[in-house]
């Protein structure tokens, strides 16, 4: 069979939220000869990826793929800039810390910054880790500038994400997808193919939708995927929050730094909160979420994306990132109409690596906060970590090393920032650090921190930056 003969000719995207529209746009743009249609279904309020405002810096890559322009989004009020997150009460001492997408510190001679700072920390000659990252000083001051690109500048190469206003962002996606064929209605029946895949969707008005590939973006119930494979891997042991309350954004001053405050039974951000219902201390309410993933998000001719593939805690805003990354991967590995099992296996393998590593990163916050002051946190401290996270913790807590994993969404810098922020301290410095002269390294670290601390005052408040961009 030649390349053209097995090519997919039609794709039906079920779900017209942010995830569904993103998928439809990306597929239509990359595959101009393919009929990409959207099936608009009643929105599931538990489909958090369609409703949350956060993103990761990988969003720029995705926007480039679908032709969305950052400045245009900012002007339309659909996006503002996001440098990272301030964490409060996520450690035994409660001291705030910052996670940003920047390099922490600078290399000292032969050794990386991390082992050097670790030695300084063990000697009690180091400041909080985020004091050594330029983007964190900006975030703390509530300021934002675009990275300059100058490798010599401390503000040369950090990354930033976007904070989305979900309704307006969705409108922009709608506008971009307006030319795509669209149907509306609830699914009443699913016709199966001989191989177990989906042949057609039947709607309540009698309409029948056929496609070579069906993409399930219809939220955690995954009506399409679960018809062909009901498997689900539950993560509530490690990601305990099973209720999410979304408030209207208070519309306060725009801030390029997110906020994550640990509470007695979960955590809250500026426009919402997540908690564990078994330990609930507040008013209750909210959407029920079931943290976990579909072990095989792509089965035959059905691909699940967004909450249909993985339902994950809103911490660090990873759900949209995972959806966008999955869309790009699905395009990279797009099989033929026959959906050869080896092609799907490669997709599912890489997706599993990525998803589980994000889960590990988030689980870390709950399992190693060091807090035991409420029944919830005390229970979390007793739980054992998933295998990958256990390996990371064993190596890090004992000797400060971070083992390598494929398909990491958060790089070494992020892992370090969170581990150290939570108060997970290595007992020993890495062997290479023992050779570093602390009498030279510690003052150099102080000078760096002082230099970075002086950066924000050079820039105007974010409100003014934003007003100028929108003018």
């Amino acid at each position: 069979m030649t390349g053209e003969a097995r090519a997919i000719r039609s794709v039906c995207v079920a779900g017209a939220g942010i995830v569904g529209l993103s998928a439809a746009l990306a597929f239509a743009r990359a595959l101009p000869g393919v009929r990409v249609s959207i099936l608009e279904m009643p929105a599931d309020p538990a489909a958090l990826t369609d409703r949350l405002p956060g993103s990761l810096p990988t969003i720029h890559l995705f926007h480039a793929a679908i032709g969305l322009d950052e400045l245009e989004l900012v002007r339309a009020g659909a996006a503002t800039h996001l440098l990272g997150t301030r964490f409060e009460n996520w450690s035994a001492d409660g001291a705030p810390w910052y996670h940003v997408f920047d390099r922490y510190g600078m290399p000292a001679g032969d050794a990386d910054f991390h082992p050097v700072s670790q030695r300084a920390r063990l000697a009690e000659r180091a400041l909080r880790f985020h004091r050594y990252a330029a983007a964190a000083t900006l975030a703390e001051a509530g300021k934002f500038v675009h990275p300059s690109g100058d490798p010599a500048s401390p503000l040369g190469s950090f990354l930033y994400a976007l904070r989305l206003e979900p309704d307006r962002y969705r409108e922009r996606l709608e506008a971009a997808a307006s030319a795509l064929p669209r149907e509306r209605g609830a699914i009443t029946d699913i016709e199966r193919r001989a191989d177990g895949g989906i042949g057609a969707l039947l709607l309540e008005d009698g309409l029948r939708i056929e496609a070579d590939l069906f993409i399930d973006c219809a939220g955690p119930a995954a009506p399409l995927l679960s018809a062909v494979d009901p498997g689900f891997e539950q993560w509530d042991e490690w990601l305990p929050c099973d209720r999410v309350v979304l408030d209207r954004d208070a519309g306060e001053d725009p801030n390029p730094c997110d906020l994550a405050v640990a509470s007695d039974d979960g955590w809250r951000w500026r426009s919402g909160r997540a908690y564990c219902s078994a330990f609930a201390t507040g008013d209750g309410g909210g959407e029920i979420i079931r943290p976990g993933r579909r072990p095989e998000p792509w089965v035959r001719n059905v691909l699940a994306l967004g909450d249909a593939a993985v339902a994950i805690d809103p911490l660090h805003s990873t759900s949209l990132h995972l959806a966008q990354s999955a869309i790009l991967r699905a395009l990279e590995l797009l099989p033929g109409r026959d959906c050869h099992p080896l092609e799907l296996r490669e997709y599912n393998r890489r997706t599993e690596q990525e998803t589980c590593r994000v889960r590990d990163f988030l689980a870390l916050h709950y399992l190693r906060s060091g807090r035991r002051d409420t029944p919830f946190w005390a229970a979390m401290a007793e739980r054992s970590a998933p295998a990958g996270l256990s390996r990371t913790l064993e190596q890090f807590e004992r000797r400060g090393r971070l083992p390598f994993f494929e398909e990491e969404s958060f790089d070494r810098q992020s892992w370090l920032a969170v581990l150290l922020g939570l108060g997970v301290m290595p007992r020993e410095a890495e062997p290479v650090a023992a050779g570093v002269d602390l009498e030279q390294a510690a003052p150099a670290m102080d000078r760096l921190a002082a230099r970075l601390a002086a950066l924000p005052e050079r820039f105007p408040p974010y409100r003014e930056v934003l007003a100028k961009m929108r003018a």
Partner: protein
Amino acid sequence: MSESGPGRQRVVIVGGGTAGWMTAAALIRKLPHACSVRLIESAEIGIVGVGEATLPHLRTFVEMLGIDEADFMRATHATFKLGIEFHDFGRIGDRYLHPFGSFGTDLKGVHFHHYWLRMRAEGRIDDLSAYSIANVMAAACRFAPPSADSDSMLSTYSYAYQFDATLFAPYLRDYAVARGVERTEGKVVDVAIHAQSGDVTALTMENGERIEGDLFVDCSGFRGLLIGQALGSQWEDWSHWLPCDRAVAMPTVSPEGPIEPFTRATAMSAGWRWRIPLQHRVGNGYVYSSSHISDEAAADALVAAVEGKAMAEPRLLRFRAGRRKRSWDRNVVSIGLASGFLEPLESTSIYLAQGAITQMIELFPAGGRIEDADRDEFNRMVDLEYDRIRDFLILHYHATTRDDSSFWNHVRTMTVPDSLEEKMELFRVAGRISKYTQGLFLEPSWLAVYIGQGIVPEGWDQRAGALDSAQLGPALDRLRANVAEAVREMPDHEAFIRRRNAQIEAAA
């Protein structure tokens, strides 16, 4: 600080070949504060001196030691290596280069080879190698260092060295001894093992001297003096997949004409033959399966096949494909041939030693106690590398149509590991290469060998169909022309080396 004070580990390396001195040099460079290093070698025990040809990763090692490349290359009579040229593997008369570099430029986020596959299906006749700058450089025997600017086409290739392996270990010995590694000449006659822990505690030398240590590094070669003979760490045999178990080697005088910046591997009736051009001579050898050809016949075949005048009698080497089930066992880390062996088809021996050294330094037991978790981490990494390289090597033998000898009939029809079977099938379906980012041989390497050995995918990335062929054809033409033009401006490989040598001599 005393030699064996708390926190300062006594490392004892057994074996002064390439792996032993690489280990010693790296330890004394990276952890001089954390350990003392002693290396035991015996002039009576010869070194195998594997790997006259290396991989680009060795540059990182040389750089890490702070060694000046030009000086190092002059001392080891090294030439540059842009890849390995395989002859007669897929079928007799075939030839392709596995370059240290990528093919073409990705377009709209789609790997270049998918466009090439599509245009090929539409009738365009050209070779994928024309889009690889390393390929075109190699064919023209030209060389210039790659660019650091990632936007430049000149950043899409890398290079390694071809050097005299018998000079590499002495070069590192001078380096290591000058920085404090203690060298002990003599043979180990006894290994003392702690009754409870099972750790090696001391070695007894022929002259009666007793050498104690905390961590022992076994670089004793195939014997595996500590890891195998003393600790009994088991060996996993892979000779059913990689049947070559001997080599006969013979250097020849450099021929007239340009020095090729690549290694040649030519398939023979019962294995393959290497040709590695150095500054002053050419290294040759026939790697073969002793089940399929006799030693005499192999030596005769080598003598008959080499181009220049022989500089020595053919020398026989014996080996077996496989690896230790645990490369780090108790307090013994095995590095080099003591840890495992994969035949030199893709010049991986020195790389494997380097990888193990890097991991050992990262997991160095600075506190004295060796944790199981650290050994497991080390063994996990070593195993991962071995397994992938094994699959990559088997591919060269298995993806063939050759049926002209019992050897080729065997490797063509044998059952290969499932992991390889699946990788090949994934490529066959639509030109996709199973992705990983850590370890050796990433996507371009697999692509070069798949295509070079005649595996032609049935399909390609559907997105490659989005561009109009009326535009794509001229775009490919331009890319080819740009590659050719960039190479035309580069100096001759040999001239580049001679000029650098002259500069060093002038400076000295």
